[in-house]
């Protein structure tokens, strides 16, 4: 029950920022939708992706803010007094942020799709590459998977940097930046070593084929499933590490 209460509280707290981001995204895409002409549609197709570059910044800020706010509002006493393990608190906060991220991706994805489809209908093919349907699904899947992993890493690195900085009374910004850098470097190195241990696992193959320029091409992208497993283990490490830090090290 405490888990869901915490989840709902986090949704409420970061709801306003998410709402602002949603409205800005909608307004920006509506603006683009009403401005498509024959002279600028290529620029519009490029600009339509801009919100997807803003969302990671939001996720990074949420990752940092989620605990610093607890200290600022002096609610960390309540949080630490909850009869829950540290990792469940981390998970509840993470799930709230992930909920907003998914909603933003779905919303921005839908409006992007509308703009691209309108451009296609009005001005014909806009891509220099003619891809097969399966290839488009594969590209969208790979891009989305990479995008989600990227955001997850940003969130947890910002969160752990914030928690470590709370151990100190001074130079918190410096500590935050150093720990953020260290966690990025070390987590990717550890994931690399773990990937080596699991390289007996099968590869996932994605085929992308079509016609581009004067070429008929097929590209096979094989990604070892060990990469996904090692990244998952590193993220689990983040959750457990942050949980232990919250539970055992940090004082109110």
């Amino acid at each position, binding site marked *: 029950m405490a888990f869901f209460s915490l989840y709902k509280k986090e949704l409420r707290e970061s709801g306003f920022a998410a709402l602002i981001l949603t409205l800005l995204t909608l307004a920006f895409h509506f603006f683009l939708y009403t401005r498509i002409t024959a002279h600028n549609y290529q620029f519009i197709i490029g600009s339509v992706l801009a919100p997807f570059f803003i969302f990671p910044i939001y996720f990074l800020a949420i990752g940092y803010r989620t605990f610093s706010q607890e200290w600022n509002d002096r609610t960390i006493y309540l949080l630490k007094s909850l009869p829950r393990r540290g990792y469940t608190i981390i998970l509840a906060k993470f799930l709230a942020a992930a909920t907003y991220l998914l909603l933003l991706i779905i919303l921005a994805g839908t409006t992007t799709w509308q703009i691209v489809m309108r451009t296609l209908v009005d001005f*014909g093919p806009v891509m220099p590459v003619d891809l097969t349907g399966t290839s488009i699904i594969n590209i969208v899947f790979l891009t989305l998977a990479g995008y989600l992993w990227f955001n997850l890493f940003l969130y947890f690195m910002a969160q752990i940097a914030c928690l470590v900085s709370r151990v*100190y009374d001074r130079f918190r910004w410096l500590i935050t930046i150093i720990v953020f850098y260290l966690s990025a470097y070390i987590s990717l190195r550890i994931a690399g070593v773990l990937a080596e241990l699991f390289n007996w696992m099968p*590869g996932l193959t994605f085929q992308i084929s079509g*016609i581009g320029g004067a*070429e008929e091409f097929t590209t*096979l992208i094989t990604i*070892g499933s060990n*990469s996904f497993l090692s990244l998952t283990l590193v993220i689990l490490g983040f959750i457990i590490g942050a949980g232990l830090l919250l539970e055992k*090290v940090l004082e109110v």
Partner: protein
Amino acid sequence: MLSRKRVITIIIILLLVFVYIDARLITDDQGMAGLFNVDVSYSGNVDWSSGEDYQYRSEVSGEETYDRDDLTSLRVANSFGEVDIIGESRDDIRIDYRIEIKAATEEILERTIDQVALELNHSNQELGVLTAKPDNRDRMNIATYLTIRAPEELAVELNSRFDDIRIENIASQVVIDSSYGDVELLNITGPLEIESSFSNYEINGIQEMITGRFSYTDIVIDQLSSDLELDLQFSDLDLYLANGPDAWSYDLSTNFGAINSRYDFQLTEDGTRIDYYYSREGQPLIRIDGRFTDITIH
């Protein structure tokens, strides 16, 4: 006993030292490359002319002669490699072919040489010409160069991708589906149907109706003397009339484009659309519908 703060400080300092040393020692095959373990393989007839990737090369060439018998049409399908079809006064079909193979390894080359061949299919009074190729064309390029001399009364259907085409002296229907190549059509006295993209067309001396759908293609039609019906997208047209401008009916329209002419055409504009319509009883009709297309009538 060290305080927790001191322990964490020591850990951070040790990690910074580790990162400094590790970053200096790390090699290319460690780190991110090792983590993501991504293998990307690419196949396709890429940059045939440079040929730097595939150094093992060979070719299969020959000549086939086929009796005309009951044949009424010729169908050619080819990807990569030039196609010349020449109509002549003759009773047989002569095909000169050269199949070029490039492969990444000697083994692939040798295996491929045994699997490529010119394939002729005779059915329903039609002769089909195509190249038999292996199903798996990974790490190789195959191009077929064809010169076909055929009776001029044979109808021609050509499906071609990624190279140049030349068809001349055909006295029957010609149907072309092509993309990515330069196309030259000369002295065709039968009707002409074209569907094409990403190409350049030069059409000269056509005596019957020309019907075409073009995208991303530049077209020059010289000595037009018949009906013309074109659907154009991102394609520019230069049209040279065999007779003066008064020998034609016109139904021209382009959206996001221009209609240029040295003649006194009274164009109408509606937003981004420019139209010109003029009907003359019994005269051949030039009907063009374009998007992002400039039409120039000389």
